[in-house]
């Protein structure tokens, strides 16, 4: 019998919680319609300032998931290739780069249908003489 009274007591104990939740705004958002704005410091996808890059490869050496590749023909002409599908947005390239040319912005919605679309040539410097 005590058991039943305890059940009834916990009913009236919990009732104010659910009523308060009932009349307050719901916490969830309908995602595709309403998007969640990430904070400024959010580490999203890799971007680059091509002028500062001198092709030293510091970022390529430290990337944990081999998402960066440097094809260097000579001192002036080289290409920095970024494999977006392998990148885990850890921010180590931004840390290792001494010329602050590579950085992470806070975009996170990125989907492509073909695998090729994930590969992006960040820097493409050719012999301009």
């Amino acid at each position: 019998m005590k058991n039943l009274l305890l059940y009834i007591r916990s009913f009236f104990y919990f009732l104010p919680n659910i009523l308060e939740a009932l009349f307050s705004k719901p916490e969830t958002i309908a995602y595709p319609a309403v998007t969640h704005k990430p904070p400024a410091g959010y580490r999203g996808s890799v971007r680059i300032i091509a002028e500062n890059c001198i092709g030293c490869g510091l970022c390529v050496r430290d990337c944990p998931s081999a998402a960066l590749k440097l094809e260097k023909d000579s001192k002036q002409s080289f290409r920095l290739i970024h494999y977006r599908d392998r990148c885990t947005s850890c921010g180590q390239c931004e840390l290792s780069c001494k010329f602050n040319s590579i950085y992470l912005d806070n975009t996170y919605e990125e989907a492509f249908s073909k695998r090729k679309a994930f590969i992006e040539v960040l820097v493409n410097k050719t012999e301009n003489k």
Partner: protein
Amino acid sequence: MNLFNIFIRIFIFPGFLFMLILALFLHWLDRKLIARFQGRVGPPWYQPLADLVKLFAKEDILPSGTNQYFAAILPLISFASVLTASFYLPIAIQSAPSFQGDFIVLMFLLSMPSLMYFLAGWVTQGVYSIIGGNRSLLQYFSYEVLFLLAMSGTAIASGSWALTDIRLTQIKESPFIFPQIIGFFLSLAGLIGKLKREPFDIPKAKSEVIAGALTEFSGKKLALWYLTIQLQTVVGLSFLIHCFFSGLWQMNTIIGFFIFLLFLIILQCALSAISAIYARLRIDQLIHLNWHIFIPLTLLHNIYILLK
């Protein structure tokens, strides 16, 4: 009543179509309320209909070796029995066919789906379905009995087994909700046990036995099962309202009909609140709660009515 009137009575107004719409509406209300209790947005109004349409379109497969006909008949029988039960309930029309003893017929028709649920588990022979079926059998014997005993309190008070007599005595004296408040709550608990709703939904516990006896069903059969459960809620609740509240409004009037709908919605909110608050009880706690607390209370309550 001429043929056309009967056709309307059975298929359109208080019959098939109206019950379906009411069932879908109450099911949506239930899911929306629980969602809002939990701080979620909740489904749009057409969600239950969309689920059914999707299920009807889905492929209907069964494990190899199950008896195809048996598995097809079970959802049909339970769906038909709940629908015929809805014809005996005078929701807004005075002249519902009523005879001495239709209280028992209604009780039997409402308990058919639970039996079919157990057989469905036995037919499909899945590991989870057998365990789900066994559990629903245990629950069938305890909570159907509770529902029958608690509701028969009103029949005893009105001295006859006919629904219209129950209603007439309530109009003469006072609605049974006031003298038999305990009987009302016990029959509500019995209804929750019968519908296998939240605190007593161990037979279809998502975390242990996936979907219990319905694990192997899909497509049209599963849609029928879900429709049966939703219809059973509506018929059960209107049965409860008829036996405990029917003196509060005059039949066959528009206002009476809307008051009836209002009571239906209030009771559905109560069911949703109960299912939002309690955790799922184990099968032995369920049986213990029923046979050690609810049944003795109901018997005492009925004896008290008899002596009064």
